């Protein structure tokens, strides 16, 4: 038989990692990406990548990394894949090092490691404050090498619209749209790997990039793929509020000694410098003496939320707290954190070496995602998923610096398995369903172009973002979640009246966006309804009316299936694999 055709959708770390493994094994890959792959969202990761290399004489082990990850995720992650990831992590760091990632070094020329949240070990390798950028470039360079020798064909500027399913429900390729010519075309393949990232855009403003809409995940969810743990959304404790987006202030700022505080007196009008030490409330250090400023993200986020909204201690009465680095000398800050400090300086205008930063929690990471088995395959045969778009490595809360390793590990796992699957799968009958899928997509596009309503898609999107941020982020109430679901239903209804200001068929970005918006709306119901059903608090999911974790009822993976009905998705719950570490209470006010 001819060489199998494999499609990878998404050119961030997970997608590129999969491509490299397939190309290295002699396979051929068609790589699809909305943006040139070097501009993928992985570039935004700042702080580092975790691996228990134990180069600081602390006795760190991969078993300890595994335990921290499971514990940090509040025991919701299936343990078998997480264990494998933690065991593979040191080898992944070595590989990245060999590929030329300019990791920071010790005086002896070895890899340097910093501390990150949710662990007591120096386990995070880093390249300045631009680790994601450096890692993405290293993989991008290797893929370029395979592109030159013909193993990889890139389709940059193409957007995934849907998978092609044959009469038996087996994935036989994808339909994609050229974002310049707006051409819709079928690409056949024996296996497809989605590596399409998170869904921050559903929340309007987030720390995510513009392309992180969750549109591809939603499209295949609507075609029958399960979506798991959708309700688990990480709100990063320290983001910089902005007009166009929330910009991340990396956890490494705290890893290098940054301290979070507010004035002890509500409404204290004094400039920060005039507030003496005794009148500053270092609330994370007081509430969590063992971990201090390096408690996991969900814990830090709720603490900031509490100090602002319950204690009324936000700076100037605004929803903001100080993240202070001014006690650390300039030279150290420049060496270890320059990249992130520049971001603050550039976008806010203050120098964080001189003035404490003002930060507030912002939507950051999608723990949930497409349901996959231990082979990274969704319930649609032939359709795989890796990276942030799938659910399996972070449970109810992701630890800082675990995302980069999970993306690369997920891609490294998915690539070879997809290649093996593609070599063995029986050929498709006829066109495998390609013509039918093209027709379905063409019909959707035609409908959108001829719609004559009054709704502007960008304004509908803003309304969605406001609703989701209000009801489905840090604190969740069932009443609010129900309101949010009703609002989404209203928006879905109004979507039928969307009228495009631009109906041309050349580089029409609002047309592409409107298609994404529909998928965002469908996926937002999975998030809201999943949160509604889960009457407990676990990791990032927190309900004041149900403040405790309830393992008896909810130590389960949430699985949503698309129904097309007005009530929304159908939910079922699946047992979590806890065969290695017995669930125990999770607390950070003392050593675990």
């Amino acid at each position, binding site marked *: 038989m001819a060489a199998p055709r494999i499609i990878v959708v998404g050119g961030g770390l997970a997608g590129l990692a999969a491509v490299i493994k397939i190309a*290295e094994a002699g396979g051929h890959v068609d790589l699809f990406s909305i*943006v*040139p792959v*070097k*501009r*993928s*969202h992985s*570039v*935004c990761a700042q702080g580092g990548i975790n691996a228990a290399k134990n180069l600081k004489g602390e006795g760190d082990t991969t078993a300890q990394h595994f335990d921290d990850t499971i514990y940090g995720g509040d025991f919701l992650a299936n343990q078998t894949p997480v264990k494998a990831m933690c065991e593979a992590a040191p080898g992944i760091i*070595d*590989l990245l*090092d*060999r*590929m*030329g990632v*300019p*990791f*920071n*070094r*010790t*005086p002896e*020329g070895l*890899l340097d490691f910093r501390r990150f949240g949710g662990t007591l070990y120096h386990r995070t390798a880093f*390249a*300045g404050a*631009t680790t994601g*950028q*450096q890692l993405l470039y*290293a993989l991008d*360079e*290797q893929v*370029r*090498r395979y*592109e030159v020798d013909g193993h990889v064909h890139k389709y*940059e500027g193409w957007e995934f619209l849907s998978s092609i399913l044959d009469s038996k429900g087996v994935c036989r390729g994808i339909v994609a749209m050229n974002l310049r010519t707006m051409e819709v075309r079928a690409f056949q393949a024996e296996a497809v790997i989605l590596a399409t990232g998170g869904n921050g855009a559903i929340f309007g403003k987030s720390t995510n*990039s*513009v*392309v992180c809409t969750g549109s591809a995940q939603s499209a295949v969810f609507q075609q029958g793929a399960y979506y798991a743990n959708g309700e688990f959304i990480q709100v990063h404790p320290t983001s910089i*509020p*902005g*007009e*166009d987006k929330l910009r*991340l202030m990396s956890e490494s700022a705290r890893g290098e000694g940054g301290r979070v505080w507010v004035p002890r007196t509500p409404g204290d009008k004094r400039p920060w410098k005039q507030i003496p030490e005794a009148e500053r409330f270092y609330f994370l250090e007081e509430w969590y003496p063992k971990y201090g400023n390096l408690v996991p993200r969900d814990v830090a986020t709720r603490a900031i939320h509490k100090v602002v909204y319950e204690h009324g201690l936000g700076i100037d009465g605004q929803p903001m707290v100080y993240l202070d680095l001014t006690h650390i000398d300039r030279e150290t800050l420049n*060496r270890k954190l320059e*990249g992130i400090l520049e*971001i603050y300086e*550039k*976008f*806010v*205008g203050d120098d964080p070496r001189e003035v404490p930063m003002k930060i507030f929690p912002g939507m950051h990471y999608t723990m949930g995602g497409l349901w996959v088995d231990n082979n990274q395959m969704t319930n649609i045969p032939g359709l795989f998923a890796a990276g942030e778009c799938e659910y399996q490595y972070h449970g109810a809360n992701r630890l800082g610096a675990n995302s980069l390793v999970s993306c690369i590990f997920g891609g*490294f796992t998915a690539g070879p398995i997809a290649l093996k699957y593609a070599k063995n799968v029986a050929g498709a009958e006829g066109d495998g369903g390609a013509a039918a899928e093209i027709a379905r997509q063409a019909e959707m596009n035609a409908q959108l172009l001829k719609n004559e309503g009054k709704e*502007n898609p*960008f304004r509908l999107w*803003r309304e969605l973002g406001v609703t989701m941020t209000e009801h489905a982020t840090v604190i969740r109430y069932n009443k609010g979640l129900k309101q949010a679901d009703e609002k989404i239903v209203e928006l879905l209804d109004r979507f039928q009246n969307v009228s495009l*200001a*631009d109906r*041309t068929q050349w*580089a*029409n970005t*609002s047309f592409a966006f409107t298609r994404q918006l529909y998928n965002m709306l469908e996926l937002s119901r999975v998030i809201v309804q999943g949160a509604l059903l889960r009457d407990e608090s676990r990791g990032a999911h927190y309900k004041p009316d149900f403040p405790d974790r309830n393992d008896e009822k909810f130590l389960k993976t949430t699985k949503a299936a698309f129904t097309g009905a007005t009530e929304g998705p159908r939910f079922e719950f699946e047992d979590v694999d806890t065969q290695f570490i017995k669930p125990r209470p999770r607390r950070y006010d003392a050593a675990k």
Partner: protein
Amino acid sequence: MAKTVKFEIKRQAGPDSPAVWENFELEWRQGMNVISAMMEIAANPVTSDGKPTTPITYDSNCLEEICGSCAMRINGKARMACSALVDNLEQPIKVEPLSKFPLVRDLQVDRSVLFENLMRVKAWVPVDGTYDLGSGPRVFPQQQEANYPLSNCISCTCCMEVCPQFNEATGFVGAATIAQVKLFNNHPTGKVFKEERLRALAGDGGIQECGYAQNCVEACPKQIPLTNAISDVGRDVVVQKIKDFLRG
């Protein structure tokens, strides 16, 4: 209307369509940047004289000046739109596409030439494979600190846009690619291709096209020491040429 911000944006429906300027007047907001203004226009696509128009086509992604997407000319200067804060700009704020690259639509241009150049100079470290081969070569902090800035290049192409030599007549490769040659030639494993990279920069369109205008280093949003890279690589190219000549 409260305090407003005025924009003049160059529109062009396609590569062969005529260019027209459209004016917009938007409500001022704290922390507003050029990107948030274009988002506002998309949500309310009406010009300042009340004429309905279309949302503006432009490239953007991270909005943190790290993905390199949103390069454009703002008040005549090539820069990233995400970090262009409205309060720091003279009004009306004039926004145009980069001028040295094929136009797609409005502010969107095709910059794939840079990625092609990176292929030509083999801008990668040729690892044996992705299987476990132990740790990489030792690198002292001093060397890491020298290489790291070069590795920060976001491929925005601002350095190429502002370079007087970067044009069809010279076919000049541009500063970004030359800096990557320096980066990979410095790497303990990457330097195995050093000679090939230098030869790729030796001919027409190569490093000798540089006219030392030094615009590149000023335009670079990442403050990459581009002129140092050009002089270092330029010297290496000359040495390589002599070696190749003597070897016959």
